[in-house]
């Protein structure tokens, strides 16, 4: 039955959507559907039934003459000359590339956050060793931490650039493009099939985001501020990093489908930009404050508190931004 519908969609794809044309299409769809069901009842296979219905369709030119519709637009390159037609291979490859770049970009973001976690971890080991009087050694630790952070961020930037380059050949999707009707249908089906996975990914991501602050709060409530607190900060950062990876990966695939189908949830875009802007201010500030407090005030043992605060701030500000925008 779907085959008949996509056949008709295809035949009517390039025709003007006038009332008369749409009425003809609906009426013929109904007739063909009943004919198909009748053939099936007579014992024909799915394949044979569809084949016969389509064989008995006739010539679209006859209908066009009757409806006074110029068949001009059925020849490619007149009505849709400016819009680039996307082929099946291109669409499939685009979705694949978006999936891969989702992994890459997610990994890059993960590395940036993991870099901060590594900085705290290395300093914490340094701070704990500080008490044993190895001053020069202890001062070298934060420097090592910063170096590790910078290396990880540099690697992440490399990954971002690489992922961007791989997607650059799909730049034509930013302009005007069209999908053939059958391809549109195929991608809609694929998107529908992906939706449950996307929902699961979002649930996992959100659960991790809820878990992250608990990783700080629970040990604090249970045992008070102990010496292990910084390690919980590290665990929290890695949890957030995992959540971000899941969001980026699933979001990238969804974005690919939305772009092809032009169904993007554009109302969400400004929120995303705002959140990104807030993050790009808060995190460098937090890292700078941490390093300044550490190097100038030698507060390595306490300054890590900045990172949970930064996480709370980012989550709170983006939540408020979303709320305000909805109002």
């Amino acid at each position, binding site marked *: 039955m779907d085959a008949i519908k996509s056949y008709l969609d295809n035949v009517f794809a390039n025709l003007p959507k006038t009332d008369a044309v749409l009425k*003809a299409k609906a*009426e*013929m769809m*109904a*007739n*063909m559907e*009943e*004919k198909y069901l*009748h053939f099936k009842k007579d014992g024909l296979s799915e394949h044979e039934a569809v084949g016969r219905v389509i064989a*008995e*369709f*006739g*010539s*679209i030119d*006859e*209908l066009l*003459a*009757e*409806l006074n519709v110029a068949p001009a637009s059925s020849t490619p390159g007149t009505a849709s000359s400016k819009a680039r037609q996307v082929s099946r291979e291109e669409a499939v490859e685009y979705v694949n590339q978006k999936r891969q770049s989702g992994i890459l970009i997610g990994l890059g973001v993960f590395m940036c956050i993991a870099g901060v976690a590594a900085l705290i971890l290395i300093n914490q080991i340094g701070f704990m060793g500080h008490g044993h009087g190895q001053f020069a050694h202890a001062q070298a630790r934060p420097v090592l931490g910063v170096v590790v952070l910078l290396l990880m961020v540099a690697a992440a930037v490399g990954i971002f650039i690489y992922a961007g380059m791989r997607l650059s050949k799909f730049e034509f999707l930013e302009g005007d493009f069209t999908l053939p009707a059958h391809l549109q249908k195929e991608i809609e089906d694929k998107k529908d099939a992906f939706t449950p996975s996307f929902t699961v990914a979002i649930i996992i991501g959100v659960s991790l985001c809820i878990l992250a602050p608990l990783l700080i709060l629970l040990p604090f409530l249970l045992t008070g501020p102990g010496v292990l607190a910084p390690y919980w900060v590290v665990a929290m950062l890695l949890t957030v990093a995992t959540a971000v990876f899941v969001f980026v990966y699933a979001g990238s695939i969804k974005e690919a489908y939305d772009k092809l189908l032009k169904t993007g949830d554009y109302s969400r875009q400004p929120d995303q930009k705002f959140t990104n802007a807030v993050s790009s201010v808060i995190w460098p500030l937090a890292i700078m404050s941490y390093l300044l407090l550490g190097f100038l005030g030698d507060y390595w043992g306490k300054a890590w508190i900045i990172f949970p605060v930064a996480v709370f701030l980012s989550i709170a500000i983006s939540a408020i931004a979303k709320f305000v925008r909805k109002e």
Partner: protein
Amino acid sequence: MTMISSDVIRGYNDLIILSLLREQPSYGYDISRQIRTISEERYIIKETTLYSAINRLEKQGFIESYFAHGEFGRVRTYYRITAAGRTYYREKCREWDLTKSVINQFIRES
């Protein structure tokens, strides 16, 4: 079993459809099914031909459409013949008689 070609029968689709609707109102698929059955599968009308003919007859006021529920509660577009349609049908019948007799005067198979 040979099938009739759409070219030969082109001028008579209107007549065939009107003759069926003279019996009782009907809808798209049923009309094509009746044509298939009555002609003993020697004429199978194409979807585009059927819709074009119905559309033409309706525009000329020979048939009119209305919605009605069929089996399984599906809403169908039914067509019924109008008074003008019956008059037109009789004219077309006379034209067919004339055509038939003229053509017959030329046809000698042996």
